[in-house]
């Protein structure tokens, strides 16, 4: 049973009937208002759940302070497993963690310190999960998430399904045998999801109530990890680069383009036409017959966004475009599009960067 009230078509029709007149006249406009006015107050915009039948945990990495696409999908997977009766508790690790987790589908949020090393992590997670006794724990199959999931499963003895490709409340499916076979089984206690396999939660916003994080035990550390060293933009392989800035036919001023990429710390890319013309090396070509990017941000100057080019942007999360044509396909794909001449914007941006030092 869902909690939705049953529709009564007869009553709805009666409510739409305008009094008077010989023939019945229905006014369906404003129907919504009439309905809700009579059916009591509107349901609250936030779903709060006090005592769910059981809990499902999602472990969400928030590198940007809020869940990214993958993190929202992990929450979506937890919601699938929780169904209507269960609650979702999110353990969040990252900088300024905790934002946007309720929208993502979490009823409770526990923030874990990102500085907890890999060795202590399973113990801390088990302590944080203990009050909830979750039926399932879902994580992303990222390097960090995949590592935590396996440590957690090995420590607790819980069953694990790593890298599931399909999930519903009754079964999970994962490739086995060198990706030549697959196994369908009931969802295990621990699950990891690769990117773009499970849809994010699309329902009403959840409460995301904060809970107290557990104490971090002081262990005799046998593993010490240092700080993360980011790779230099110029020598990074295009396929691995986090920030790519690309030139298309609309770029003529390549001096500004190169200067700008150095200032922004971006790796350079180009459309095929530009590479064909010999203005950029072939290795810089982005697209179906070039490199498929794994970048987080793609800054495109004077690129139309042909389908073959857009294929190279498969996983890119943020596209920024500078183009003179409002109707270029890249503008539709962009989070920010600037309709202007690239030859004017690039020097202006350089000036601004130089001004700020």
């Amino acid at each position: 049973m869902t909690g939705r009230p049953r529709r009564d078509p007869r009553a709805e029709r009666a409510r739409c009937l305008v009094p008077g007149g010989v023939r019945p006249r229905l006014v369906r406009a404003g129907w919504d208002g009439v309905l809700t006015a009579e059916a009591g107050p509107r349901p609250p915009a936030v779903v709060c759940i006090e005592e769910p039948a059981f809990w499902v945990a999602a472990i969400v990495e928030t590198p940007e302070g809020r869940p990214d696409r993958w993190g929202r999908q992990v929450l979506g997977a937890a919601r699938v497993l929780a169904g209507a009766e269960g609650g979702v508790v999110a353990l969040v690790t990252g900088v300024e963690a905790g934002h946007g987790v309720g929208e993502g589908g979490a009823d409770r949020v526990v923030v874990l310190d990102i500085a907890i090393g890999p060795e202590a992590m399973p113990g801390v997670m088990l302590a944080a999960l203990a009050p909830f006794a979750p039926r399932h724990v879902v994580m992303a199959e990222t390097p960090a998430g995949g590592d935590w999931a396996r440590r957690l499963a090995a420590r607790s003895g819980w069953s694990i399904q790593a890298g599931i490709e399909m999930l519903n409340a009754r079964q999970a499916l994962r490739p086995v045998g060198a990706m030549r076979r697959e196994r369908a089984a009931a969802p295990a206690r621990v699950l990891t999801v690769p990117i773009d396999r499970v849809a994010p939660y699309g329902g009403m916003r959840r409460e995301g109530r904060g809970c107290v994080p557990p104490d971090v035990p002081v262990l005799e550390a046998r593993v010490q990890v240092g700080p993360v060293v980011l790779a230099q933009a110029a020598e990074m392989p295009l396929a691995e680069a986090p920030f790519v800035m690309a030139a298309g036919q609309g770029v003529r001023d390549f001096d500004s383009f190169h200067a700008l990429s150095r200032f922004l710390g971006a790796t350079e890319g180009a459309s095929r036409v530009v590479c064909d013309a010999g203005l950029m090396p072939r290795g810089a070509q982005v697209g179906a017959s070039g490199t498929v990017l794994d970048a987080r941000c793609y800054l495109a100057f004077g690129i139309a966004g042909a389908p073959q080019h857009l294929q190279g942007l498969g996983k890119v999360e943020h596209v920024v475009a500078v183009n003179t044509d409002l109707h270029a396909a890249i503008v539709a794909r962009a989070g920010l599009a600037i309709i202007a001449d690239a030859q004017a914007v690039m020097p202006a941006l350089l000036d601004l960067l130089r001004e700020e030092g």
Partner: protein
Amino acid sequence: MRGVVLLSGGIDPVSGRPAVPRGEVAAIGLALSAGGAVGGLHVGEGSVAQRQAGGYGLERVDCLRGGGDAVAILAAHLSAPPPDLVLAGSRACGGEDSGMLPYLLAERLGWPLLAGVMAIGAVADGWLSVTIGLPLGARQEARIRLPCILCAHDAAPAPPFVFDRARRVVVRTVDVSDAPPVPVVEGVERPYRARPRLIGSAGPGGGGTVLENPEPAEAARVLLAHLRALGMLGSSEGASIDA
């Protein structure tokens, strides 16, 4: 230093013929770079894949035959006398392929473990320094107490394959008995069917902001603010890594 590389009986994903998984080739390379004697260890009947592993530089491969739970067999074999370093691939290729074996083994032996290892450095006071590979070309230095288990990053440099070494490798079969049975896995197995990934989930909130014909200075300011907000600029250490 005495190193042991764990070899699963892998198959090639395309041809289905025995082959050494990519991650285990990387593990052999790491073990060789650490110096000292390096042996291979496989639980199960030996196959061509173990000989191939010899071609990447192993002198000897032990196959522990007799059946049973690989973790228990390996734990028993590795505890007397323990090597300094155990290396594994990120996951097997042809079995359950979950990547759990090194973690279960580390838990059983009580040894520390690190995954995603790109390179091995020097040993000092019983600590081994290693380099971990993260997405987008980022790196992280770490130290780990010996003895330990390391899982190689799939992209760690692979040693060259030498056919003659594959011919000369000593493959020894050791019979093991009274190992606990292999844990049962539930579910139905069938041929793999590729499923499309979700599409249209890129980008937060779909349609973006469009700025029509701004002044160049205005455009530059908006661009810069946007890139800052995305965390793509400045020395935001670690903040811009999708790890």
